[in-house]
């Protein structure tokens, strides 16, 4: 009788475990904010988080190097090479982060 019910419940449980909602973006946001370089002047312009990664747009007055040095990818994330666009004295930095082990 035990085996019968186990078989029934296993057959019902397998699909539920196989199909899950995506990763929790709130946790990713929390880890990003915890590692944000708040002491270096910068102006966040956009932030996108989803199952494939994070995209961050930041503007920096003058040299973006101090910000890039201070920014560290949160644990469990890897940072790709930043994209820089300079207009006048302002540089827009676009950062792309992916979950560790994920392929671009």
């Amino acid at each position: 009788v035990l085996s019968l019910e186990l078989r029934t419940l296993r057959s019902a449980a397998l699909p539920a475990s196989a199909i899950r909602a995506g990763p929790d973006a709130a946790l990713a946001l929390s880890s990003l904010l915890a590692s944000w370089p708040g002491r270096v002047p910068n102006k966040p312009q956009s932030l996108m988080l989803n199952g494939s990664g994070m995209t961050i747009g930041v503007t920096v007055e003058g040299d973006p190097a101090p910000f890039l040095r201070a920014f560290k990818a949160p644990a469990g994330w890897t940072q790709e090479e930043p994209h820089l666009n300079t207009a006048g004295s302002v540089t827009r930095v676009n950062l792309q982060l992916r979950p560790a082990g994920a392929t671009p």
Partner: protein
Amino acid sequence: VSRLIGPAWVAVIAGGVAAVAITGRFATRSRSAAATAQSELALVAKEAQELVTLRAAAASPAARHASAGLAQRVGAALTRAGLPASCLSSLSPEAHSVVAMTDGQPRLTRQRATLVLTSLTLPQLGAFLDAWRSGEPEWTVTGLDVSPAAGGSAVQSTGGDLPLRVVLALESVSVEEPVPESLSPVSSLLRTTSRGHP
């Protein structure tokens, strides 16, 4: 008398050896039976534990249908986070996508929704996410798009008071037909067992 001592010792020794042999044989059988019983006990205990886990999973809130009243859920989360209802810019639930199941299995459905909040600060966003996470565990925030709200003050170009526009992607997976109680022939046995072993 001295002639009888030798055969007597031989008889005693033979009897002792026979007794040891017989009891040793029984001991070997008993040890084997005990090992079998122990392995069966371990298997049954493992299956019983798995059964309890599976039954709990089948009855968990995540297994219930979670999509009903999404607007009310969002409104309640805004209230718990101390945010005004005017922060809610739009809520767009998508149609259920049914995951194909074989006969006899519960039907799994996935639902997504897009929620847009505006004119809230970063700490307020954190409060909302906290309220949503604790109050609606069956809904996961799978995507976030944060940007400065249009028309924000030029002075507040940065910092925690900057009004934001946030687009949240929500997703839930639910079971349409939970496993009925009638399919649980050992439920009474489990209840008896759980009373005996809290």
